[in-house]
């Protein structure tokens, strides 16, 4: 594709929709990603997105036009179950129950998809798992839902920034001194579920973990304050999403996996920079 051909793409509104939605989702997922990675919940994104996939299969077989009615509540319920009960003494430990929910949702989801009378099951499944080009087929309604949700997530994050910090660093201390940690954990769980459901459009349900963990890992290697890590991971995430979407149009590759590849490259660059910085400090 020549550069002038590439530029003609910007005449289409769907390209702009994709860029706006991609940026917003990348921003939200990176904000919460820092907390998840530090609390050792990196895999929650993966698990929840599989749950969302299962819910989507049910919605598809039921023939619902607005699949969100099923997907969102189910994912939120799973998030609350996983994040708000794991701190207590349960018979099953956290990562085992997460893995269990994750694979069963994936398996049942695929099973249910096969029961539907859709002519192109493998195509549908592949699209939901890897995001494929659905980001380029967003409607104006999708765009507005995404904008409203993202603004809400960002505002909540800023308002509760210090609480989120305290719960991430030391939940026991916060609880002991009288902070209502239960409510904030619930808030974090709900917000994560919303982000995962939104992000399924962008990168598909298998690749969501990348949006959650890569930006956070980039910042953690290089920055020494929590604020620095949060801001840097937000910037990295937005930049990678933009580059990824543009590159996928230019190279005609699947959008989701291109974004994840860009995130991986960013992570490698940051790790190298962090390594160099530590050596320089020691020398």
């Amino acid at each position: 594709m020549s550069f002038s051909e590439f530029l003609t793409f910007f005449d289409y509104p769907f390209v702009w929709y994709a860029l706006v939605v991609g940026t917003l989702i990348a921003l939200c997922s990176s904000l919460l990603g820092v907390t998840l990675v530090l609390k050792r919940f990196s895999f929650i994104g993966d698990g929840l997105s599989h749950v969302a996939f299962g819910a989507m299969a049910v919605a598809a077989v039921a023939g619902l036009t607005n699949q969100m009615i099923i997907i969102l509540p189910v994912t939120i319920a799973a998030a609350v179950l996983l994040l708000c009960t794991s701190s207590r003494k349960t018979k099953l430990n956290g990562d085992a129950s997460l893995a269990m929910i994750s694979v069963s949702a994936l398996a049942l989801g695929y099973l249910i998809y096969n029961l539907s009378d859709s002519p192109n099951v493998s195509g549908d499944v592949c699209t939901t798992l890897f995001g494929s080009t659905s980001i380029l087929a967003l409607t104006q309604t999708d765009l507005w839902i995404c904008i409203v949700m993202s603004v809400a997530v960002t505002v909540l994050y800023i308002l509760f920034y210090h609480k989120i910090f305290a719960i991430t660093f030391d939940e026991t201390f916060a609880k002991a001194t009288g902070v209502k940690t239960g409510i904030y954990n619930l808030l974090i769980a709900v917000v994560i579920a919303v982000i995962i459901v939104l992000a399924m459009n962008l990168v598909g349900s298998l690749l969501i973990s990348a949006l959650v963990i890569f930006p956070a890992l980039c910042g953690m290697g290089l920055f020494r304050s929590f604020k620095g890590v949060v801001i840097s991971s937000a910037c990295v995430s937005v930049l990678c999403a933009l580059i990824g979407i543009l590159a996928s149009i230019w190279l005609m590759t699947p959008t989701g996996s291109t974004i994840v590849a860009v995130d991986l490259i960013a992570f490698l660059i940051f790790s190298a920079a962090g390594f160099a910085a530590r050596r320089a400090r020691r020398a």
Partner: protein
Amino acid sequence: MQELSENILLACKDLSLGYEGHPVADGVSFTLERGDYLCIIGENGSGKSTLVKTLLSLQPSLSGSIAWAERVTVGYLPQQTPVQRDFPATVEEIVLSGFLAKSGLRPFFRKQEKGLAQEKMARLGIGHLKKRCYRELSGGQQQRVLLARALCATGDLLLLDEPAAGLDPKVTAELYELIASLNRDEGITIIMVSHDLPAVRSYATHVLHVMHGGCTFGTLAQYAASDAGKLFFAEAEA
């Protein structure tokens, strides 16, 4: 709940502690007055940490009563978790988070709180570290950071769960001296879980020995003279 007399901060009566109906320790009774320095001792698994968690209402007691004086704020120095050791946050960010319980729904910290945090850090000798990253500090410095955070949460009572775990003897001695000076000079009541009997002897005013089937509580002198105390101190010296 019975009325507590003026000087009493905390009164526990016949507490039974444990998880899911399995008591680890029972018959725990003691009272704590303002300015006391109470050491909680006992063998591993005897329920010391469980007692601390129960006092902080992090877990329910199986039976018995805990009565707090009105408007007591508590600062807590927990045992460190692996998550914290490599946490990317500055000293200042961590110390400030001690104010959270007081700030309610207010999203940001006040200037006055930032000033107070600065004071606490200076008081504990970590003022010069405030922009440093927590994970790059030594064990002793990290404990001081967490102590400064606890002081931001309270002026009344500090609960310390084995504060010297993993520190070398010199740093341990400095930390104990610092805690003792907070007790002596600023009138902060201390409850400390400790394995360190020499420290208990030199700093504690009261001792609570937690064990299966009853516990021993008294002033340091009373405890040292009791059967449990004689045995415990003798074992430690042997």
